[in-house]
């Protein structure tokens, strides 16, 4: 009989080992899945994980890693602050959309004026838009005690409808020959979130993601507010004893994660995507949840997890075109990763023991 025995102290070793173990297990299971689909498992895994980094076309793929990874990391950092304190923002996807809409809206309002202040204003609008959208569940939670999971989630669907409405209506390109979607912001220099260094895929979103990682690291390890966040997650009663205000914490965590998600949306719509269209959102808000957990809610961990997730996206695309591996398989793969991580996580706090039947 297996028995779980609580460790006296969370195991340092296993804290680092669990993500690695989860990845290995996912690769094994994923390989099984791929062979089930009639693909060579080793080749598939290689295509997904090795090719984007080291193959002869890697110079093309590597920038894609930054492009895909930046929004994931940016959103996940914001989410991790809340998750650490037990505040569950599941609606990052919606905040992402609203941020993009606000930012693009600002840009299109100024079109065709060229000025240096337009882009910074867009950034501000994107962040504020995401922040405001996240304030709805925050306010409802603080004032009425409403569950933030369901409210933030419902707002995702509302945001998607808003997106559709905007791309067909207010933000529609008047010179677009009647096709839905806004003007392409990549062709509007003042609004374009261009690559900072050509060919690397590094745009302002990437920079923002890196800044966010540093900011979160400093906050969690060096600042009182970060300490309070960690304390609330570990021992809510001790947090109240220390004097943490639950209201302020909810507003802070949801606000920051909303703002960061909104920024990610803005950088995406002004850069790699370029257009406000009905299918603009790619599910980053949800994948970021996986990234946050995979990174064990730690800023540096999230950076690495974001890179790994981006790898699965880019590698998955390659596998789709080269091996005919369906895109859904990658989605499943990502879901499996989260599953395995959650399952393996228990070793951090519990030791597995064989229970000898007690002579009674």
């Amino acid at each position, binding site marked *: 009989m297996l028995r779980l025995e609580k460790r*006296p102290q969370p195991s340092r070793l296993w804290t680092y080992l669990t993500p690695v173990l989860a990845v290995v297990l996912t690769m094994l299971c994923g390989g099984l899945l791929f062979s089930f689909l009639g693909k060579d498992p080793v080749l598939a895994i290689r295509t997904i994980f090795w090719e984007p980094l080291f193959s002869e076309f890697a110079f093309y793929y590597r920038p894609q890693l930054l492009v895909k990874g930046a929004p994931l990391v940016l959103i996940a950092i914001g989410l991790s602050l809340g998750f650490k304190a037990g505040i569950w923002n599941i609606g990052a996807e919606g905040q992402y959309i609203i941020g993009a809409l606000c930012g693009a809206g600002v840009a299109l309002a100024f079109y065709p004026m060229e000025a240096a202040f337009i882009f910074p204003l867009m950034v501000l609008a994107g962040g504020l838009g995401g922040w405001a959208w996240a304030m709805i569940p925050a306010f409802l939670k603080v004032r009425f005690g409403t569950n933030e999971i369901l409210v933030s989630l419902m707002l995702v669907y509302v945001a998607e409808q808003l997106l559709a409405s905007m791309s067909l209506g207010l933000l529609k390109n008047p010179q677009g020959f009647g096709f839905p979607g806004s003007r392409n912001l990549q062709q509007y220099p003042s609004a374009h979130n261009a690559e900072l260094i050509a060919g690397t895929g590094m745009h302002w979103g990437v920079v923002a993601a890196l800044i966010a990682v540093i900011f979160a690291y400093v906050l969690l390890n060096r600042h009182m507010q970060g*300490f309070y966040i960690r*304390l609330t997650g570990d*021992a809510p009663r*001790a947090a109240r004893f220390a004097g943490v*205000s639950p209201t302020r914490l909810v507003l802070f965590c949801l606000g920051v994660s909303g703002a960061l998600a909104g920024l990610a949306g803005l950088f995406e719509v002004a850069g790699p995507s370029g257009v406000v269209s009905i299918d603009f959102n790619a599910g980053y808000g949800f994948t970021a949840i996986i990234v946050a957990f995979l990174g064990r809610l730690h800023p540096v961990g999230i950076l690495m997890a974001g890179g790994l997730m981006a790898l699965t996206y880019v590698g998955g695309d390659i596998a789709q075109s080269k091996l005919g591996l369906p895109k859904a398989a990658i989605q499943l793969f990502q879901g499996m990763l989260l599953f395995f991580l959650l399952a393996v996580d228990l070793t951090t706090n519990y030791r597995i023991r064989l229970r000898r039947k007690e002579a*009674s």
Partner: protein
Amino acid sequence: MSEILLQIEGLTKAYPGVVANADVSLTIRKGEVHALLGENGAGKSTLVKMIYGLVKPDSGQMVLRGAPYAPAQPRAARAAGVAMVFQHFSLFDALDVAENIALGMETPPPMRSLAQQIRQVSETYGLPLDPYRTVGELSAGERQRVEIIRCLLQSPQLLIMDEPTSVLTPQEVEILFETLRKLTAEGVAILYISHKLEEIRALCDAATILRQGRNVGTCVPAQTQARDMAEMMVGSTLHTPARSPRTMGDVLLALNNLSRPSASAFGTALKNITLSVQAGEVLGIGGVAGNGQDELLAVLSGELLTPADAVQFMGQPIGQATPQARRRLGLLCAPEERLGHAAAPDMSLVENALLTGVQRKGLASRGFLKWGAARRFAEDIIARFDVRTPGPDVAARALSGGNLQKFVIGREVMQAPKVLVVNQPTWGVDAAAAAAIRQALLDLAAGGAAVLVISQDLDELMEISDRFAALNEGRLSPAKPTTGLSVDEIGLMMGGAHGMEVAHV
């Protein structure tokens, strides 16, 4: 003398590091109310768990109605006619009385006939209970009735009760006693664990006293003085210390007629609490757990807010002040629950030092934490209070109870508070650590601080307090000087009679 129901011979039970019961023998007769007396850690719960089948004795034997009795589990004990009412109830608040009782039975009858039986039994024994009332709405005394009725429906011959009156008002105590007398008249024996000496004298026919796992004597309570029983429990002559009067300074902490409903559904509301503590004084507040101690601490620490002038610190109204503000002023608290409340279990001692020390020890500047200073503070606490730990980076939950308690108290003491409030400072702590903690509290008072000690341990309170008050059901008795305070008076204060006599049978 009636015939013997349960005979216990030489029962022994040891756990790693401690002998809970050593060669305990006792006799319970039919129709007898037999008290089991002893301090915390004397071995009462272990003994009773063995009788009820929760724990298996290492050696010794039990004979029930002349036949060998060794229950492997509570089910077997119940089948043999032994029932137990625990101190902490296993009840489901959202369900009604009948459903709760049904859950505690092996094969409950259909709801309607069960409800009938409940009504009948409850009326017969003077504990009226409506089977369809929701348990969550019942008072503590009524909830106990549910537990008792659950036992009575199985027609026990021996009923074990663990600290039954700790949650009862004086009126409810009388009602319970009537019920117990009725039961004994029918031949049911009752094993009554308590440390309320006056009650035992009023109710019980015989008493067995345990100390450090041993049976140190039996007596007939009605013929013994409370003081003598207390001395047998403690093992020495209880001396109220002749204290050299310290010079008392100004009143540093005052509560003025404070009333506050509890924050949780099962807490105790505070009612008209008035107290004051002077600089250099130790005020002891006694009372069995569950009478408002947590709420009192929360009101002082700032976790529960009150009208501003209900709590006064050096004359200033602070009822609305946050915990951080109170710490800055010099009012520090140490709650009862070590892990989860006073300290975060998975965080290191350094981080836990930061938890309350940040304001007074200057461990942060403009929000940014000074880890070096926090570490030094933690190391100071560990050194000064002899906290046994491999180092300050160890998680709080890895420490033993005694060591963690030393750390928690030490953390507050070393912040040089003007007022320190502690709740159960030496609960579950070994004797050496307990002595060290008490000495630290006395030294703090000698240095001019005002100290408020809330504790269940009367000994401790008599040893270190200058004045003593008792908390009962959210009400505080007036404080009296400890010199010259007799055990009788203390018992009365804790019985909630507030000077009124407990009814003598």
